[in-house]
């Protein structure tokens, strides 16, 4: 749609987008449909992607390629999405999550979450959160999930909500325990002026310290208790989000279509995603990669085909083409960071970002490649035969 408009207006598709973005200073942005976009800087990822792909240079290369009869295309998609589902009234199964944190008498930490990951890596992200907040080592934290005999009821990981909701519940449970550890620390140090940081409680006057393990041990032995404080070092926190989060990004894809065969080669894939603050860059990139691969599948290969009798003829993986590693281009993944005000960690969620950015960018790129033969629109998937027919028919198939 944006590219069609750009073509009508004889404007560069990047310029058209930059001109029409909601401005950085307009957040929180109230939409006509009733949503409040938490935070955003939509120009930032597009500008970064244009820079990374070296937009002027690839447009110049395209001009040269077209003169030589080659079908080189540059396509982009800028997206905003709705994540971290969400306030319970808007999320039918319930939108909250909870976390339980136990600091064991040894000082080791057990985290239990109902936001059970299934490959997204929150075992690591949540352990990082707990380790950072409590000042313990990553190896001192165990994250338990998925076993309903052990872990409390939860909603689950979907809608890019695992860290933004489940992680926030964990964050607040950790704050409870930090406060409690400080109380026990003050008791052990016999001081009313202490700081809890880096895994130790320090008497600000004398500099004496007690470790988290000593504090936890004392809390379970319970020889003495701080005023209005129960024994033990366990906290459960339920977090109900006040709003969704709204990540965004820009993907730019350079493709070349073989005039003889209709086959698409992806020459460059640049993804700049803004998912707020990033806790684990490697896991975030993994999420982007996975999403882009799924988006490529939709754009180029995957289709449910029925025969004239209504029989599904792509019912097995011998006929339904899912992407395989050898079919995937190098993905240049990068980020801008616009923290979310919805949760204290400023995270937004990244599970679907790649998928959302990818398919339209690929289609826009291939349409751009085929624009010299008069193509303005192609339905997915962009199979070689479909493109070959369009080329043969001068865009009129």
């Amino acid at each position: 749609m944006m590219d069609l408009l750009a073509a009508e207006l004889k404007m560069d598709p990047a310029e058209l987008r930059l001109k029409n973005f909601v401005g950085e200073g307009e957040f929180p942005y109230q939409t006509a449909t009733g949503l409040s976009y938490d935070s955003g800087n939509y120009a930032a990822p597009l500008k970064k992607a244009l820079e990374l792909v070296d937009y002027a240079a690839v447009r110049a290369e395209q001009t040269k390629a077209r003169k030589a009869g080659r079908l080189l295309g540059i396509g982009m998609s800028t997206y905003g999405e709705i994540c971290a589902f969400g306030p319970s009234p808007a999320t039918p199964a319930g939108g909250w999550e909870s976390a339980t944190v136990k600091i064991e008498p040894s000082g080791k930490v057990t985290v239990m979450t109902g936001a059970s990951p299934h490959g997204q890596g929150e075992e690591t992200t949540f352990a990082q959160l707990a380790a950072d907040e409590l000042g313990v080592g990553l190896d001192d934290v165990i994250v338990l999930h998925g076993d309903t005999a052990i872990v409390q009821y939860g909603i689950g990981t979907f809608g890019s909500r695992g860290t933004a909701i489940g992680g926030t519940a964990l964050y607040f449970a950790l704050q409870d325990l930090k406060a409690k550890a400080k109380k026990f620390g003050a008791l052990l140090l016999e001081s009313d002026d202490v700081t809890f940081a880096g895994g130790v409680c320090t008497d600000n006057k004398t500099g004496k310290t007690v470790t988290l393990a000593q504090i936890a041990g004392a809390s379970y032995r319970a020889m003495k208790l701080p005023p209005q404080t129960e024994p033990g070092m366990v906290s459960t926190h339920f977090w109900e989000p006040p709003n969704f989060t709204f990540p965004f990004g820009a993907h730019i894809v350079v493709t070349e279509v073989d005039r003889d065969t209709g086959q698409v080669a992806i020459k460059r894939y640049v993804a700049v995603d803004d998912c707020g603050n990033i806790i684990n860059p490697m896991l975030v990139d993994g999420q982007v990669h996975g999403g882009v691969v799924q988006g490529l599948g939709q754009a180029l290969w995957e289709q449910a085909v029925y025969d004239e009798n209504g029989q599904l003829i792509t019912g097995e993986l011998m006929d339904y083409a899912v992407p395989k590693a050898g079919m995937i281009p190098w993905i240049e993944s990068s980020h801008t960071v616009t923290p979310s005000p919805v949760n204290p960690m400023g995270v937004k969620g990244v599970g679907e970002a790649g998928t959302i950015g990818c398919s339209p960018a690929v289609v826009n790129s291939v349409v751009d490649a085929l624009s010299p033969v008069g193509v303005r629109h192609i339905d997915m998937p962009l199979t070689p035969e479909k493109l070959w027919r369009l080329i043969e028919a001068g865009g009129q198939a």
Partner: protein
Amino acid sequence: MIPQNFEYSAPANLQEALGLIADGSCKVLAGGMSLIPLMKLRLAAPEHVVDISRIPGMSYIRKEEGAIHIGALTTHYEVETSPLLAAECPLLAETAACIGDVQVRNMGTIGGSIAHADPAADYPAALFALEAKVRLASATGDRTVPMDEFLVDTMTTAVEPGELVLEVIVPAEASGTGSAYKKLAQPASGFALVGIAARLMKAGGKVSMARLGVTGVASMAYRAANVEKLLEGTAGTAEDIRKAAAVVTEGVDVNGDLHASAEYRAHMARIYAAQALTSAMARTS
């Protein structure tokens, strides 16, 4: 996903295997890369499967009297990586490298693949271009059939009930022969939508021998003799190749399916035939 019940035998030697299959009621299992999926989908439901994969001495690649003999149980990986084939019959090694994926190439065998005779399998294109022969064994004796008699129709070969594929025989190439295999793979299965094997020799600046095997295009793989005739005797220029490749599907009933219509497949066969011939030409000397 679960096959029908079947009886299973794993004979220890060839004689035992030939005895078991003598009455023609058994299905022979080698690498299992084709038969097992068919059984799981219940497109095949043999009552008795004779697994020959443990029979010793049926996996080999050796040169005898100017020809290379490849045992039926030789895996695609072994064909792909054989130094003997790389040196003296590179077309077959290049073709084997294009089959399926790593797992399939490690399990699947040349005998199993050609006996199964899938019309989109890779080997037959190369075996036609190489004018290969297939040796069959039965309890009553051996016989050798040339490739153009071996393939009869879709998934149908000259292998009679009671027979099994013993070995494939390909020529040890004369020096100066150029060959190439070009494949357009179906994106889901990896099978050939079009697979073209070309084999050329030049003498005195002219193409003295041209062979072209085609798979994936029709109900069975075939040898495109019309392309060969058009090219032989020419200088083998780009234009000669284009003209010859243009007739690769002439007189052929071209397959159409959800992955490629007949029209597109025929077009791709012409493109890939030209590509295979061009590569093969560049490799002649």
